């Protein structure tokens, strides 16, 4: 195994192991996202048409807010006890640190989504278990985790990181959120694939561009 892959795997393994022990991140993300879909479920209870047309937005609101909690916590763990310095002092390509942290964040987001989606499907009476819809969830989560990990690393040195991260993250991820909502909505309303594909293409392009940019600039972002 190359040094890059070994380092990336080690960081992912470490994040999963610490999360398995504490369950702090996942439980907070899960409770938050379940609460969001539950509150909207009651708010939209009487209006079935509005419910169907807003379902995609509700779902992504739950995912991105939960994701932000996870991103903040993921980097805060590295800052505590100076662990981030420990990582930066290791003789590894710093993009391996980014990929390891981003994949860890993505995995936690996917675990939360895997639990939230069946609950959402049950509460809203909408079948979300279709390949196209699940691909949109995956693509949206990849884009959000990639940009979120980059920005979380950028703000982790600041005192106001909890406030600063959403302020920077939400505008920058607007294209991915809008595309994910539109594409999800398209699949929920069973629109023709031609109508949905434009949003899916934007998601793919956003993921590729921001993954490449994040890998290139991560080293500079971490320098004091």
């Amino acid at each position, binding site marked *: 195994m190359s040094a890059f892959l070994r380092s990336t795997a080690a960081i992912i393994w470490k994040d999963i192991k610490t999360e398995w022990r504490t369950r702090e991140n996942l439980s907070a993300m899960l409770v938050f996202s379940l609460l969001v879909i539950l509150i909207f479920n009651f708010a939209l209870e009487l209006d079935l048409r509005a419910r169907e047309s807003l379902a995609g937005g509700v779902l992504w609101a739950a995912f991105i807010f939960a994701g932000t909690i996870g991103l903040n916590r993921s980097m805060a763990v590295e800052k505590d006890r100076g662990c981030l310095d420990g*990582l930066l002092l290791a003789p590894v390509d710093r993009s391996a640190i980014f990929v390891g942290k981003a994949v860890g964040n993505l995995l936690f987001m996917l675990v939360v989504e895997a639990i939230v989606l069946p609950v959402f499907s049950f509460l809203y009476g909408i079948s979300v278990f279709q390949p196209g819809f699940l691909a949109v969830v995956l693509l949206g989560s990849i884009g959000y985790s990639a940009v979120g990990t980059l920005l979380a690393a950028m703000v982790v040195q600041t005192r106001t990181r909890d406030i600063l991260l959403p302020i920077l993250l939400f505008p920058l991820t607007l294209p991915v959120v809008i595309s994910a909502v539109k594409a999800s909505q398209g699949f929920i309303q069973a629109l023709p694939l031609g109508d949905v594909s434009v949003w899916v293409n934007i998601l793919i392009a956003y993921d590729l561009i921001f993954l490449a940019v994040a890998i290139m600039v991560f080293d500079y972002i971490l320098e004091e």
Partner: protein
Amino acid sequence: MITVKKLVKRFGPITVLRELDFDVNSGEFVALLGPNGAGKTTLLRILSSLMRPTSGTVQVASCNLPSQGASLRAKLGIVSHQPLLYGDLTAAENLEFFSKLYSVKTKRIAEILDLVGLYPRRDDLVRTFSRGMQQRLAIGRAILHDPSLLLLDEPHTGLDQAAGEILDRILQDVALEGRTVVMTSHDLVRSAGLASRLVLLSKGKISNSLSTVDLEPADLIDFYKTGLEGGRS
């Protein structure tokens, strides 16, 4: 091993290091002393490639910084007043994690745990360790990849007398293996007992330097006072 010339570090309008010149030979154990705010930690962070200098030349273990920071990191171990360890991993898991980052064989983990006296506690979470045990494990992490240079930033901070003595013994063992060690400290007497040379940093400059061979207690006080007065001028 370390050559620093005319090093300047500014944080906005504040100048922390002022055209500092500093040399350390291979195998030396240098204690960097000085009052709070003298620039000890900043100097160590620049030497470890964690921080860029504003100007000046820095060469560490034949690597020019900051351009060759990546090459330096494999030759360098660092112990900070923070442990740089994950509290929710066990001692063995922490070393296993860093062994993968440093491409070190896993059998080295048991050797290191034995060296720092934590083998019986290898499966305990680091957050359950006392401050002294965490610092011992931090030294273990720092020497896991057998670095030729060890940088220690106030490693005795927060340790009681007994824990400090255990740490001293480990540091002496580590230094005896031929490593170059640079340690920042506020403890003049302890530093004189450990290091081969004392260097005083005051107001961002090296203001005094003294070998610890045949050192008398009165020399220590004189070294510190003279150095501080020199730094103020």
